[in-house]
């Protein structure tokens, strides 16, 4: 009986953990854009296409400038939850694009503060940071599932 209960607890934990992990991970990165950008919400698929260089212009026709982080929690979460790649496969993906001339690579920064500082001054820029980081000077973009 005790064994049976333990099994139930284990199954329950295995079932809840990914949901919990996914929910937490989803709220851990915040997509930020230039404050003058008229967009306030985009779909998850659009975010993916933006960071893969497939969606290159905002709806008003201005050029999207992508900013990525070298590594870190926000970087890992965005890749895992939205883009569906590992850090290495994401790097290789951009290598392919750069060395086939498909597009220029995204700007890369090491910290949330660097991302915020860049996005705040470049119209059309989009980046991501940890949700608990200071994002004054930029606008948070809502991502719809």
């Amino acid at each position, binding site marked *: 009986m005790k064994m049976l209960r333990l099994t139930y607890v284990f199954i329950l934990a295995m079932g809840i953990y990914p949901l919990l992990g996914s929910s937490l991970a989803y709220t851990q990165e915040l997509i930020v854009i230039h404050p003058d950008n008229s967009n306030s919400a985009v779909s998850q698929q659009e975010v993916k296409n933006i960071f893969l260089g*497939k969606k290159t212009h905002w709806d008003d026709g201005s050029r999207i400038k992508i900013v990525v982080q070298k590594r870190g929690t926000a970087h890992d979460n965005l890749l895992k939850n939205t883009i569906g790649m590992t850090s290495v496969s994401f790097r290789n993906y951009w290598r392919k694009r750069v060395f086939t*001339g498909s597009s220029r*690579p995204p700007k890369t920064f090491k910290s949330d503060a660097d991302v915020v500082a860049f996005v705040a001054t470049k119209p059309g820029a989009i980046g991501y940071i940890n949700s608990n980081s200071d994002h004054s000077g930029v606008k948070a973009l809502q991502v719809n599932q």
Partner: protein
Amino acid sequence: MYKNRLLAACLLTMFTTQAKAVEIGPLEVHGFLSQGYMHSSEYDFLADSDGGTARFNEFGVNFMYDLSDNLRGGMQVVSRDMGFLEDNSPMIDWAFADYHYNDLLGLRVGKVKVPLGIYNNVLDIDAARSQIIPPMSLYNFYLRDLTIAIVGGSVYGNISLDDFGDADYTAYIGNVPIETGKSFEGMLQLTSGSTLDEVENSISSGINVKWNSPYGLMLNASYVDINDIEFAGTDIATSIPYESKMEMYAYSLGAEYVWNDLTFTTEYLAVSQDMDLTVTSQFGSFTTSSSNLIDGWYAQASYRISEQLEASTYYSVSYRDSDDKDGQDALAAGSITKAFQAWHKDIALTGRYDYSDNLTIKLEGHYIDGAAFAFGTPDKRYWNLWAIKATYTF
């Protein structure tokens, strides 16, 4: 001595620094340096591998320049060394102007890379793929000149399919820039024992469609048609000159599935060739016609063990003539001396170590059945090959 010190300083810098692209205003410069060594137990394969060779490298540098939000230009120069087929002479890999009207439609004009299969356009970029030597069934080095780039134009775009992901397309038409002394000549030496002295460039047109599902599955289909490849050369054994006209079409179908750190890929390629060969001698002019279908497939799995380590394996099968897979017809006709020259079956195992964001080192072993793409006296059906390669990108 000075050169050795300079080389040592360069290597030390490469291993200890995190290089970034060079930016000069709106101009951005990227590059790669790749040096390998390969050794085979029998035969020369791709390079002078029998006994080992370090003539196995590629270097490249590119720049891109944004002229406006929608218009940009760029160029990549590559130098490669691969045995007797490539000798480190710099060549323009791609150079084009790119007008991106919107995400649905863009236009490139110049020398552009073309897709045939999932990985064709990254064949020269060692760091962007798992293996050192990609599966020959799809990425046959000897067909490289015909299928890797055109001088002309291409249209491309990405179509959003909402809940069903998105699709990429590329359609192109242009001249095939074939040169003497490179892979196309290698194919002629391998299949007909002749040199390539002169070549008239031909027209290539094709299309590639890729569906990126939201579930980790990607499907790819390619088609290319190359008309009127006209060339002249000399039969090596008899020194008799010949002229030839060839037409070719190829198609490939492929699938890639990514599940967490595992990636599975499989692809199929068929290449149909029709060739008229005219030999002129003191007895007159004789023309013979031939056609054959080369086909092959591979299945590949790669697993990312950690941020730095990846292991991958593939099994690849290809035939010089899919209507004569056991080689008996070619044997009877005398075009080969051993039946195993009709196929190339390869089991490969690769370890990839990403030392840093810029430096990648790979070690690879192959166990090969057949000698369809190997040079040398065909006396061993089973043989092996190993290779090591380091690539630095910035």
